[in-house]
């Protein structure tokens, strides 16, 4: 077995102990790596029904199957834990040098349990694991933490993943940052680290990663690198994902002002094209990536002079149009603040948008908001709230819980316009105009996530009528999810998915050349299905019921507000039809539960026994 190390590092923060578990090749072939391996490690090493912010929660980490090799755009890692935002599986991806370093240190993954008595950072120095005092780092922002740890160890090869103040303060959508600007952003895993007093994991990995067929892998990698510099990725290279803004706006699909609108009158001013012309500083690539999608923007004038951040589409949508902000400068400032405090930009923006709507409806007054006028479009309120959220001060205490908990606490009908699924705030595509995608959001195991679902693709490619809800969408959404899960196990960046002529054929070849292990394309497809079922199993274990697969009331009670398809509705009956169709396609019961025979078909029969226990 090549590429894999066959080793998982187990860390007990309470006891300050570690040991290594050896993984066999047949186990690795079932889960591949990344999100599949991390989920399986979580299922096997976590306490059912634990408090997500208690000592009993476990964090599993796994690098992608191809991390550490020369395969382009495959250097990523996944983290999985019980999410403090949703109470269900929280799986989040990041990438770049830290991912490679962990494998080069000799590990395919990590399992982190317990809670340190005082702030600690782990230093994984190849085979050595050190528990280091992090008192001097507590309170430090993520970027500074990276630099401080490298300075302390006195080695620039050390790669650091860390939390900011938001994670320390247990904000339920705090993120984990690595390599200065890559984030495992969603589902609040930064708060889980914070609850464990774990400030950072520094890794020095200096060992070579042998591959099965160096010449063959080199040839195939070069072909993929060349394809990844062609038209399918040109959009990412030229404007980055913010290039989506104008198209979505033109189609009436740009979620605006907490989804009260679907067309934004200031779209041109917050477009990728405008950013390129006025604010772009440089383009950055993850380690080993030929695409280089990350667009770094800087403000050079006015009250936000000096603000600097990577701005992608989801960040821009959430902190911009969703909050009614039509000026790029405060959006860059807001993204900069989120990165420094260690906040998920998407949940931050959408939660603030909910608060703005509460204010405009009179549910909040100035006395609730520390005097901030939370009208849509007020950028000073946006900036002021981010700091309050990160520090959990004033109204920030309420908003640090996310839109689901905050709306349940506030009531007064505000639950109807809290834009989340299972507690995870919505991404930046208008579901009423993209109905396969709407289904994907509703049934997503980690909540409202376009990345785990990918079901916007058949809608946006015109493969289906995007305004129609019908039988058959269940299978389409399932196949999209399975593909996303497969990508997230091999951990190919999704931005290069359009560069393969036949993804499954080429992916098994990459896998064989790297690891020396054979998979059929059917095996590979089944990995995706297995991992989706495994995540669902985790959710069921944690109390999931059918009612959790649903959409915010606004999307089902109010028609599409703007654009050429204004007036289009997504009814509860349509959503129910598609969800039932999805459960049937998955081979689940009418209540969305996984029957034992389905688990057995996927090689997960041991879970039936676990469930009985």
């Amino acid at each position, binding site marked *: 077995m090549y590429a894999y190390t066959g080793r998982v590092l187990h860390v007990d923060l309470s006891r300050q102990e570690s040991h290594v578990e050896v993984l066999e090749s047949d186990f690795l072939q079932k889960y591949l790596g990344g999100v599949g391996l991390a989920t399986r490690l979580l299922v096997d090493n976590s306490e059912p029904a634990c408090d997500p912010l208690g000592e009993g929660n476990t964090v599993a980490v796994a690098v992608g199957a191809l991390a550490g090799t020369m395969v382009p755009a495959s250097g990523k890692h996944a983290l999985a834990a019980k999410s403090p935002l949703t109470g269900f599986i929280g799986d989040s991806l990041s990438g770049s040098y830290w991912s490679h370093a962990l494998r080069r240190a000799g590990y395919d993954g990590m399992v982190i349990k317990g809670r340190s008595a005082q702030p600690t950072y782990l230093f994984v120095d190849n085979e050595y694991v050190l528990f280091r005092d992090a008192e001097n780092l507590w309170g430090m922002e993520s970027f500074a933490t990276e630099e401080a740890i490298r300075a302390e160890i006195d080695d620039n090869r050390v790669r650091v993943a860390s939390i900011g103040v938001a994670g320390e303060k247990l904000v339920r959508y705090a993120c984990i940052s690595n390599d200065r600007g890559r984030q495992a952003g969603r589902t609040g895993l930064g708060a889980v680290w914070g609850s464990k007093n774990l400030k950072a994991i520094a890794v020095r990995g200096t060992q070579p990663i042998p591959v099965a067929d160096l010449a063959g892998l080199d040839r195939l990698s070069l072909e993929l690198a060349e394809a990844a510099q*062609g*038209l*399918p*990725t*040109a*959009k*990412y290279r*030229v*404007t980055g*994902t913010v*290039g*989506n803004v*104008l*198209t979505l706006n*033109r*189609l*009436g699909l740009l979620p605006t002002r907490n989804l009260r609108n679907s067309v934004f009158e200031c779209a041109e001013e917050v477009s*990728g*094209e405008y950013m390129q012309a006025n604010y772009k500083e440089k383009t950055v690539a993850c380690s080993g990536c030929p695409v280089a*999608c990350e667009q770094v923007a800087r403000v050079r004038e006015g009250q936000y002079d000096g603000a600097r951040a990577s701005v992608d*589409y989801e960040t821009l949508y959430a902190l911009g149009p969703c909050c009614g902000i039509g000026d790029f400068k405060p959006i860059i400032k807001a993204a900069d603040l989120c990165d420094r405090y260690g906040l998920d930009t998407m949940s931050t923006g959408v939660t603030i948008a909910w608060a703005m709507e509460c204010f405009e409806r009179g549910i909040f007054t100035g006395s609730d908001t520390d005097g901030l006028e939370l009208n849509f479009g007020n950028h000073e309120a946006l900036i002021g709230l981010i700091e309050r959220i990160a520090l959990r001060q004033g109204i920030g205490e309420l908003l640090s819980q996310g839109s689901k908990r905050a709306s349940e606490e506030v009531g007064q009908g505000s639950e109807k316009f809290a834009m989340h699924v299972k507690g995870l705030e919505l*991404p930046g*595509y208008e579901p009423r105009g993209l109905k396969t995608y709407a289904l994907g959001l509703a049934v997503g195991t980690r909540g409202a996530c*376009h*990345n785990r679902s*990918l079901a*916007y*693709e058949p*809608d*946006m*490619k*015109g*493969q289906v*009528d*995007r305004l129609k809800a019908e039988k058959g969408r269940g299978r389409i959404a399932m196949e999209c999810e399975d593909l996303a899960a497969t990508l997230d196990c091999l951990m190919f*960046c*999704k*931005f290069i*998915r*359009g560069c393969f002529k036949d993804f499954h054929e080429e992916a098994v070849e990459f896998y064989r050349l790297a690891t020396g292990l054979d998979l059929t394309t059917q095996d590979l497809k089944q990995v995706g299905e297995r991992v989706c079922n495994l995540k669902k199993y985790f959710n069921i274990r944690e109390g999931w019921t059918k009612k959790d697969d649903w959409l915010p009331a606004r999307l089902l009670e109010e028609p599409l507000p703007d*654009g*050429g*398809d204004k007036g289009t509705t997504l009814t509860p009956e349509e959503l129910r039809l598609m969800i039932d169709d999805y459960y049937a396609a998955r081979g689940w019961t009418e209540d969305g539960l996984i029957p034992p025979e389905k688990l057995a078909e996927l090689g997960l029969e041991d879970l039936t026994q676990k469930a009985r226990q």
Partner: protein
Amino acid sequence: MRLTVEFFGLLRQLTGVNESQLEFEGSVDLHGVVEELGRRFPRLIDEGVILQDRELSPSFVFSINGRIVAQNLNARVADNDSLLLISAIWGG
């Protein structure tokens, strides 16, 4: 017959315009639109957006009056239709 094609992002760079007004004698399908765009904006051919035989790169799709059309360029367009030429690759 007149119609408008709008461009965004990369395609704005390649064409140098935000939109283009096209005129045809008689009815036309999307192959005809592709041919005319290639004639007006040769960079779309040079960069591989427009392929041989009046075909379109699979990285792009048309939207006709908000309806996204899959890779079937036999779809007819009508007078005053509004077309968007957009990326087929999303999100990530």
